């Protein structure tokens, strides 16, 4: 129990941010029309590629002799950037197709 209280005490700011961002996310996305659900999803999918920042940090922080960490980090960066670049590129391509009557 004290550990939980301590955790809350030490991470109060984080918890605030977490909750506020959840609300922002819900409010921003709630009213998106069904027409745009697929681009929204692939755009959001590209955003989840932000995990690449962590993958880069793994490589930057790795001991130069720690080949395992470097190798896994390398794969993580490749996969993350595929997610980012591919996701944004395909969303862009899709949105190009949505046209309105002139």
């Amino acid at each position, binding site marked *: 129990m004290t*550990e939980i209280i301590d955790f809350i005490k030490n991470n109060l700011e984080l918890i605030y941010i977490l909750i506020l961002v959840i609300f922002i996310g819900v409010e921003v996305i709630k009213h998106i029309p069904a027409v745009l659900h697929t681009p929204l999803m692939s755009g959001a999918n*590209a955003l989840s*590629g932000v995990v690449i920042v962590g993958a880069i940090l793994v490589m930057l922080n790795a001991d130069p002799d720690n080949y395992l960490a470097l190798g896994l980090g390398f794969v993580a960066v490749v996969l993350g950037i595929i997610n980012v670049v*591919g996701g944004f590129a395909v969303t*862009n391509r899709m949105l*190009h197709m949505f046209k*309105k*009557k002139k």
Partner: protein
Amino acid sequence: MNIYLSIIYLVSTITFITGLKLLGHPETAKKGNQIAASGMGLAIVGTILLHELEVPGFIYGLIAAAIAIGAIIGYVIAVKVKMTKMPELVSLFNGFGGASAALIGLVEFGQTSGAISQVVTIVAAISIGSLTFSGSMIAWAKLNGTMWKDIRLPHYNLINNVIFLGLILFAAYIVWSGASGIIIVSLLCLIGLLYGVLLVIPIGGADMPVVISLLNSLTGIAAAITGILYDNMVMLAGGILVGSAGLILTFAMCDAMNRSLINVMFGAFGGGAVAEGDDSHAQTGGTIKKATVSDVAILMNYAARVIFVPGYGLAVAQAQHAIHELEQLLENRGIEVKYAIHPVAGRMPGHMNVLLAETNVEYDKLAEMEDVNPEFQNTDVVLVVGANDVVNPAARHDTASPIFGMPILDVDHAKQIIVNKRTMNPGYAGIDNELFYNQKTSMLFGDAKSIIQALITELKGM
């Protein structure tokens, strides 16, 4: 952390929120995507260039190489993919994001100081990342058709729930005991992978939009958890935004199929209750009326308002271009044409809209269910192509029907209904669709593409 880097992360976070907001309107969506993408670029470049510690040059070289390789692969896939393959693509990319989070967790597990909060986040990143990865890969394989159909082990619900519980308990055990070592962490990873496979394997067909949304949401959560690990705000904010977006879509898809998320996660998921597409019914509930192409052409030619109801069967038959041509032909004769699109039409949320937009159908012709339902009663002709359960009136009144309660398109309110299907094969297991026996309904049998093309030819001769 370097203050400039913190500022960059702040700016990136703002671009993510703005970008998502702008994605919500067709006019601004493209800009929104570009803004979010530039924010992401900024965060990546900032992370590399403004790192505080001394890093040997070859590591920078490796990072650059990894980014170059991945960027090229991602870009090539994105440019080449067909729009019918969007659900596969999103699953694939989503799986990569999950794998990336799991790998980060694996590396950090070997380096952690053992502080509880750190171990919790690492263990969570590994579990969620690995289950998202394997789940997405199975979803990809199933959508791609490279994998066998829905597999249901005996008692798969029980097995799934036991494994899910096992995953949580094992993760808790690692945190509790402070256990470490490569065997422990590999085992955790394996259980996560196994659960992901078992979660998705029994699901198929029209249930895919729910699964894809859910997996998308989970990747976001995995990214956010790694953000907590590094105390990195841009990862946290970006991940949570994706997590909420995915969850909202998941709930929207559940609503559209009249299911709860609990039912989806732990219940009779993918029980085959909702099967969309070219499924026929098992038993006749009356007589059906057949129409010929020229009957339908005449009907349409003298109509004032026509609504098309496309289902996934339309995309399977590759008839999107044909139906757009038919729409233009009718419009040129002063007939008002719209497309009524059910929220779960296609294999991911909004998929049908994209497929039609690709053929240059204007997006204001794509009507959502709530908007179009009151309009059916003033519509002369409805043409249903490759959709079935989403137009079955039994969902409104037949409490015994497995789809009872599911919101449907009220096409039976229209004056004339034309249903295009390949066959009326009575031996096929499926749900009886009383729409087919409606007095106002005529069946037009044949392949969607050739039937629509024949309609166009017939109309042009009038």
